[in-house]
C-alpha cells in the first residue's frame, strides 16, 4: 500500500533505561523518599538508583528540552524519563550528584518535588493553544494554579496526595473525572445551528446520536436538526461531530470544579470526582476566581482530613453535607444528579447531618 517504512513501532525502553535499571529490572526491594522530589530505590542486589523529580510546563520548546538534556548529560550519564503526570525525572547512581543537580535545575527555574503527600503536576489538555473544542484555556489555568500551590509541590505536608487535573471541555482529555480536584471548561447555552452549512457538511443521524440527553431530533422539513433547548445541557458533543453547531460563547463559557476523585485502589476503591462548583467565569489570563476556589478547598481539606486520607476519602467520612458546610460552597439544584444513574445518588435514608 505504500513504499515508505511503516509500523516499526516505538524505540524500545530497554535501549533508553540507565544501566542500573536494566541490571536491577524487577529486582527493586524498597524505596525511601530522601527529601521532597528525591527518591532512593534500593535493589535486592544492594544497588541503588536516585530519582530527582522536576516540575515541567509540559508544553516545552525544543530549546528547553535540549537544556534538560545537558543536565542529564552532566549528572545522569545522559538518562532521564518523564512521569505519567508529565514531570521530568533525572535518574542518578551517584548520591553526591543529587544536590548539585538540584542546584542546577533550580537555577534554570525548575521546581523539585511532586513526591509523596504533595500536589504534583497538573494533568491537562490543549485548550486555546491547540483545540477547537476548548471552552477554556488549560495551560493558563495550570500555570496560575501551580504558581499559587507550588509550596505544596515542593513539600509533603498534605494529608495525602492531591491530584489536580484540568480539561478544557467535557471530552475531558485527562483523568479529570477521577481527580482529587478537577477543573473542566463548560458551556452554558445550547449550540447555534448553521442550517445551510449543516446540510452541506454533517450527517443528521450522527448528530442525533451524539446527544446524551436526546435533545436533538431531525428536522422533518429540510435536511437539518431541531434542538429542544430544555433538554440541552451544553456538552458540545453535537459540535464535535458537526462543525455547523458552534457552541462557544465568551459571555457564558467558563469552568466547573469537581472534587474527591481518585484512581488508586489503596484503602478505598477508585472514585469519580463530583460536582463542587457549577460555574466560575473565564477570566484570562489568570482566572483568579478559580485559583481562589481551588486554594480554598485545599485549605479546608488540609485542615480537616485525617493523615493519609485522600480528598474523596475525607469527604466520604464526614459526608458531603459537611463538605458543603465546611467549604461554604452553596449547594444548588445543579448538584443533584438527573442523568442516567441519578437515583443511585439520592439520599434514600433519613440519616444525615445538620
Amino acid at each position, binding site marked *: 500500500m505504500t513504499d515508505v517504512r511503516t509500523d516499526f513501532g516505538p524505540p524500545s525502553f530497554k535501549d533508553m533505561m540507565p544501566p542500573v535499571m536494566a541490571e536491577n529490572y524487577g529486582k527493586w526491594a*524498597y524505596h525511601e523518599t530522601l527529601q521532597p522530589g528525591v527518591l532512593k530505590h534500593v535493589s535486592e542486589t544492594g544497588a541503588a538508583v536516585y530519582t530527582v523529580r522536576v516540575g515541567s510546563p509540559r508544553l516545552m520548546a525544543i530549546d528547553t528540552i535540549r537544556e534538560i538534556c545537558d543536565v542529564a548529560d552532566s549528572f545522569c550519564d545522559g538518562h532521564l*524519563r518523564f512521569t505519567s503526570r508529565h514531570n521530568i525525572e533525572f535518574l542518578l547512581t551517584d548520591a553526591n550528584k543529587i544536590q548539585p543537580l538540584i542546584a542546577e535545575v533550580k537555577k534554570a527555574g525548575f521546581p523539585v518535588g511532586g513526591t509523596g503527600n504533595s500536589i504534583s503536576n497538573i494533568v491537562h489538555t490543549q485548550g486555546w493553544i491547540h483545540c477547537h473544542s476548548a471552552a477554556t484555556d488549560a495551560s493558563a489555568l495550570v*500555570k496560575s494554579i501551580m504558581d499559587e500551590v507550588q509550596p505544596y509541590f515542593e513539600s509533603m505536608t498534605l494529608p495525602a496526595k492531591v491530584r489536580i487535573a484540568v480539561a478544557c471541555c467535557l471530552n475531558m482529555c485527562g*483523568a479529570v473525572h477521577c481527580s482529587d480536584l478537577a477543573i473542566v471548561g463548560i458551556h452554558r447555552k445550547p449550540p447555534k445551528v448553521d442550517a445551510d452549512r449543516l446540510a452541506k457538511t454533517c450527517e443528521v443521524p450522527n448528530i442525533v446520536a451524539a446527544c446524551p440527553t436526546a435533545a436533538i431530533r431531525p428536522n422533518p422539513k429540510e435536511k437539518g436538526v431541531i434542538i429542544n433547548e430544555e433538554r440541552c445541557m451544553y*456538552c458540545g458533543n453535537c459540535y464535535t461531530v458537526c462543525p455547523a453547531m458552534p457552541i462557544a460563547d465568551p459571555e457564558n463559557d467558563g469552568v466547573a470544579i469537581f472534587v474527591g476523585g481518585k484512581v488508586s485502589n489503596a484503602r478505598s476503591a477508585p472514585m469519580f470526582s463530583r460536582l463542587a462548583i457549577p460555574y466560575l467565569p473565564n477570566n484570562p489570563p489568570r482566572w483568579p476566581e478559580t485559583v481562589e476556589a481551588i486554594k480554598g478547598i485545599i485549605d479546608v481539606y488540609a485542615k480537616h482530613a485525617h493523615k493519609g486520607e485522600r480528598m474523596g476519602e475525607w469527604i466520604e467520612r464526614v459526608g458531603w453535607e459537611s463538605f458543603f458546610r465546611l467549604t461554604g460552597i452553596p449547594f444548588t439544584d445543579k448538584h443533584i444528579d438527573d442523568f442516567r444513574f441519578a437515583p443511585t445518588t439520592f439520599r434514600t435514608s433519613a440519616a444525615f447531618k445538620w
Partner: protein
Amino acid sequence: MAEESKTPLVDELEKGSWPSFAKEMKRRAKKNAAAKDLVGQLELSYEEKKVHWKHGGVVGVRGYGGGVIGRYSDVPEQFPNAAEFHTMRVNQPSGWFYTTDVLRKLCDVWEQYGSGLTNMHGSTGDIILLGTQTAKIQDAFNALSEAGFDLGGSGSDLRTPSACVGPARCEFACIDSLGICHDVTTTFQNEIHRPMWPYKFKIKVAGCANDCVASVARSDLAIIGTWKGALRIDQEAVKAYIAADFDVKGEVVDKCPTKALSLGRDGTLALAAEDCKRCMHCLNNMPKAIRPGTEKGATIMLGGKAPIVRGAYLSWVIVPFMKMEPPYDELKELLGKIWEWWDEHGKSRERVGELVDRMGMGRFLREMGLEPSPAMVFAPRSNPYYFWQPDEVK
C-alpha cells in the same frame, strides 16, 4: 502579523515561580514564525475569551490512517503562519524513558519541520509535536522514522498504550508493565495506525493496584498487576519500623480496609490472608517489610472512559487473574475477541464499555467465554430482571 510586544495577557503568564508555558512559546517565537503567530492568536483568545481553531481536517502520512491531528486557525489572515498548525502524535518509548541523544534527534527533527513546540507528553502518553503544515508532514515523518520514532494513534483505532515505570524502578511491580506495553504496541501496529473500529480503544498497564497510569479511569482496557495468595511479611523489618517509631497500628493496621492485619504484643504483624483484598495500602506504607505474594499476574478491567456520551465509566473487572508471561497469548486472544465483538455490535462512536453496558455483562461474558465471578461486581443485582438461556429451562 502580531507584534512581539503586543501580547500583554500572554506576558502576564510569564510571571510567577512555576515553569511558564508562555515563556516556552515566546522563546520559540523568537526563532519560529508559526510559534510567533501562535502566541498572537493565544493573546487574541485571551482578549476575546474564545477559541480560534477550526475543526480538524484530515491530514496524514502515507500508509497511515492516523497519528496526525489537523488544525486550522479561524483567523488565518491575522496569523498566516499559524493558519495550519497540525499536531503529530509520536509513540513514546514505554515508561517515557529517553537517552539524551535520542531526545536531541527528536528536537532537531521538530526544529526543521515544525514549530519547535512540544508536549512532553500528551495525556494518552504520546510525544506531542505541536505545529506543522500539511506540506511538511511527510518529510517530518520520514525524518522521525530516521530518528527511530513511529506515529501514535488517533481516530477510531487502538490508541498508543502506556505503562507505569514498573519493574524498571518499582518494588511493587507484579507484572512487567513496560514489557507488556511495548509488546502489545509492536504487536498491534496495524490496529494503532489504521482506524477501523467504531471508536477509539485505549490500553494502559499498571504494575500494581496503585495504578500510577490511571488505567482504571483512562483506558478501555486496564491491565493491573496483582498476586494470588498471601502477601509476604518480613517480621524483622516490621520490628525495625516499630523501633523507628513508625506507628504500625495507627498508620497500617487500623487503616487496612478489610481489617486483615493485626499487630501482636510482641510486634509481629499477622495477616488473615482470606480477608486481604490487595489494596496496596500496607505495602505502600511499609515497603521494607511487606511485599506482594509470589504467584503474580494481572487483573484485567474493561470499559474506562470520559463522560461523552453516556457518562464516564471506570473500568471494571472482567478477568480476576491472568498469568502474564511473554508472548502474552492469552491477553492478545482476549483483545482479539473483544475487538471483534465490539466491531460487530458497536454503533459508531460507541466505546466498548458503553456497548457492554448496553448489551449486558452476562451476554458479554457468555460470548467471550469468560467465567462469571463475584470479583466482577461490588454487589449482585438488586432487580429481579435476569435471563435464562434456552438450555437452562424446560
